[in-house]
């Protein structure tokens, strides 16, 4: 408990200097490792070129969205049909960022397209969107024309995705507010038109004849400019492999962003 300063023995000072050097070295190594770990997520994002995720309605352009999202999941919590999920570490820099797997559960605007946007605290889901028609998540595209039942002139009987699929959809004729399980909703269609029939956006998709022959019952789905990319057609497509899916376009890094 003495407080007087004692001169240190030379060898002790040497040991101390060595320890300090090692400590500094350790710190540099550990610090670099932590920074590299954070950069690894970026490498994954840049190099893997995985197909871009379908983001919730109102999401600003992908690169800005990754930056603007605070990864809190409030959008997940308010979604009445649980369409939104949070990404995990496997998404690299997108860890904790919300996305939608339309094939499993598409956004059908059960809430009229503002709940997740209103919940977003950072504007990553842009508040400039307040109608479902203003949303632009992507664009539906007939990716496998040969798989499309309508193009083969075929109909569809039974639930769109079988009796065990867990997705829900708003059927306005049944309940204006509460989405119903699609497994409990059987169809009996002479010609499959599920992508058109259940599309929540008016005039976003139509079935058009494939030939000029009036006897030809084959039709092809044509996506119009008003398509918002919600993915209901992707979810409802009874064909396996699916014929229609939402494609997400990203414009790359823009510092101005599409925000506001």
């Amino acid at each position, binding site marked *: 408990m003495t*407080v007087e300063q004692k001169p240190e023995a030379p060898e002790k000072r040497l040991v101390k200097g060595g320890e300090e050097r090692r400590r500094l070295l350790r710190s540099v190594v550990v610090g670099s490792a932590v920074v590299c770990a954070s950069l690894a997520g970026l490498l994954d994002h840049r190099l893997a070129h995985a197909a871009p995720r379908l983001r919730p309605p109102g999401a600003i352009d992908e690169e800005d969205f990754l930056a603007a999202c*605070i*990864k809190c999941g409030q959008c997940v919590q*308010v979604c009445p049909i649980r369409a939104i999920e949070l990404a995990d570490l496997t998404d690299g820099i997108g860890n904790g960022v919300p996305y939608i797997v339309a094939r499993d559960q598409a956004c059908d605007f059960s809430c009229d397209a503002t709940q997740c946007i209103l919940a977003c605290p950072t504007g990553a889901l842009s508040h400039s969107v307040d109608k479902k028609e203003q949303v632009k998540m992507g664009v539906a595209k007939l990716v496998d024309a040969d798989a499309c039942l309508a193009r083969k002139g075929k109909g569809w009987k039974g639930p769109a995705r079988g009796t065990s699929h867990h997705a829900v959809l708003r059927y306005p004729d049944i309940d204006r507010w509460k989405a119903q399980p699609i497994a409990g909703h059987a169809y009996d269609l002479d010609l499959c038109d599920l992508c058109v029939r259940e599309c929540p956006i008016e005039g976003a998709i139509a079935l058009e004849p494939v030939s000029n022959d009036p006897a030809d019952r084959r039709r092809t789905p044509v996506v119009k400019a008003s398509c918002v990319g919600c993915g209901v057609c992707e979810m409802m497509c009874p064909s396996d492999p699916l014929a229609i899916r939402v494609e997400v376009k990203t414009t790359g890094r823009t510092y101005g962003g599409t925000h506001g």
Partner: protein
Amino acid sequence: MTPGFLSRTLAGLAQMFGRAPAKPGPDDMTPAMRDLLAFKKTPDERKRRKEAIKAEREDHSTSNKWRWRRWASIVALNGLFVASYWLDLQLVEGALTASRVVGFHFADLNSSLQLMLAHKHVVINLVIGVTTVALLYVLVGGRTFCSWVCPYHLVSELAEMLHLRLAEKRLVKDHALDRRLRVVLFVIFAVLAFVSGYTLFETISPVGILSRALVYGTVVSLIWVALLLLVEIFWARRFWCRYVCPIGLTYGMAGTVAPVRILHVAENCLHEGKCRDVCLVPHVLEMTKLGFGRETETPVGPDCTRCAMCLDVCPTGALRFDIKGLTRRSEAAE
């Protein structure tokens, strides 16, 4: 120079940024402290303290009062997040990065900083959230977040217990790092966010990861948390909280002049150092060494997380919670 509010604040910040504490000369002490130190150095007083320490060491009763309170706080607050979602209580919606607390916006200061630097846009809801949280921690002490809210703190504390047990058996050794590392990393992550346009730190933030894993079940990210805990158990005690976490530093800066703090009362102190042994940030308790105090009553600096482990181990009540302006002080230090 005798300590005043400004010099104490600046010294506290410098200490948080990694400066090694310096021993004060007689001129750096208040007259009352000089007198107290002179008294403490008298042979009779030394003998009394020695006996008091000996008696105290024979009494093996330990208190975990504050630890239990703190653990209850961490479990309750994080449990509220989980229950709000899964039981639809809607009290605290979101995760620790940002939430609505009964409808009011709350936003984590470091997550928001990363976001603003990366995105370069700010919306009003985020400003409201940041202001609310900043005000809260300006009052209760910034790093109070760390030990009373952060879920990583709890698991890290358990890892520390294991580390200490293994260290006692000489199976592991604590490798201290340079405390300036945290400042360097804070700057690097801020610059990286600004330059890259991505919130890089958020990808590896164990606070966000744990909070989201609890609420949303994103468990793959827990691999990273497990890795950090392994480092803490086998290599460097409280490695993340002590030397890395920029969140801790952000909150520490926010609460630099917080009125809620731990106060060291030199008169009661036996200077045996039990508090420094348990402390997450022992440099803030430098004044508990004999001859290192500048004032008879010293508020503990901004790096202190108010975890109150020191209160649990202090046998004489020389360390206690203090609220500036509410608790009477014998020496006017302000």
